[in-house]
């Protein structure tokens, strides 16, 4: 019986929401309108040298992101030699595969990429809750039915955490930031061995 109680307690603790576990303080005094500025300039071609480590395999290529207009972002991945591997269009509530190499045309892979890139390119964040913790302002939002936490430090977006069952699932880290531009981005998955590292080569 005691054992059962303990396990129920543990279960409750482990099911606690992510903000609770991180000891965030609810803080509704901060502004509700936040933006991710890193892919928001229509005049800019965003070109990154990409490294993808999945399980023990390593792939390289170029990730090309362009804001076409207020409604659309294009995300294209090519090899270093220029061969296109995939070409996606993201719209506000829609997603389109313009091209994908037959070998990569797997629903599960497209879904992972779609969810990750959506976080990178989404500009206007619909905030559902606001928190603070130490020097950070943290904003909760929902993207593709998953809770995401946007960390702002001194008004600069430093990272985004996607959670699953109250646990950190994917981390998006923006570093070497210079005026609305992240020179380095890393996307790290916790439940699968997948890490995407992006280094800007924007010319």
């Amino acid at each position, binding site marked *: 019986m005691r054992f059962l109680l303990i396990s129920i307690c543990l279960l409750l603790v482990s099911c606690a929401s992510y903000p609770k576990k991180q000891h965030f303080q609810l803080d509704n005094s901060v502004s509700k309108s936040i933006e991710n500025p890193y892919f928001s300039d229509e005049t800019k071609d965003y070109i990154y040298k990409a490294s993808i480590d999945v399980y023990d395999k390593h792939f390289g290529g170029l990730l090309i992101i362009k804001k076409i207009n207020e409604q659309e972002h294009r995300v294209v991945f090519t090899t270093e030699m220029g061969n296109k591997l995939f070409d996606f269009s993201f719209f506000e509530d829609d997603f389109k595969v313009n*091209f994908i190499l037959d070998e990569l045309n797997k629903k599960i892979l497209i879904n992972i990429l779609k969810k990750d890139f959506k976080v990178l390119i989404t500009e206007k964040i619909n905030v559902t809750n606001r928190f603070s913790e130490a020097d950070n302002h943290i904003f909760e939002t929902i993207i593709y039915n998953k809770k995401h936490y946007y960390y702002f430090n001194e008004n600069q977006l430093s990272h985004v955490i996607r959670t699953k069952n109250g646990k950190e699932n994917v981390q998006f880290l923006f570093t070497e930031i210079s005026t609305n531009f992240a020179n380095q981005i890393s996307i790290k998955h916790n439940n699968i061995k997948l890490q995407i590292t992006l280094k800007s080569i924007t010319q």
Partner: protein
Amino acid sequence: MRSIVFLLFFMCVAVQAQTKMSISEAETLKTLVKSQALTTKTISSNFIQYKHLDFLSNDIITKGTLAFKTPDLVKWEYTDPYKYTVLFKNETLYINDEGKKNQVNMGSNKLFKQLNSLIINSIKGDMFDDETFKIEFFKIDNNSLVHFIPKDKKSSKYISAFHITFNTKGDVIEVKMIEPSGDFTKIVFNNKVLNKPLADAIFTH
């Protein structure tokens, strides 16, 4: 009306810059390129690669060097704006991605095998295979331009045409690979040196 006349005039001029070759001219070019390919034992060259995507404001420019040694050693080395090397050797593709080394066995991969022979043939320009390509010959200024259009459905899904430009000596000076979407990769060779001895060490991983 006058502007239409001007427009037509300029269009004529633009079209004139690229004229179709006669059958005998095409045969002469083929013979020249083939004999050049036969006597080419090594190639070393600088290159500039332009990746054109219609939606981008500017082409993505990368630079590097190419080394080729007969029969089938090829090394593409990108040096700017990143370091990345691909070496085709013994049916294996060796990749050095800023120090991270990787290899792909092409023996089991038909696509890579095709890619490899395509790369070697396009460097030398010897792709005059009527069974694989529909081939069209043009003259631009003093150079020759040949369009190779893949006949195979699987290839044409990825590449709608190769446009190879040759100089008067029958050397490849530019290779353009056009995707069905119209986006393309253009590689322009410069400081190309033929038959300079190349040490085997260049082709080690």
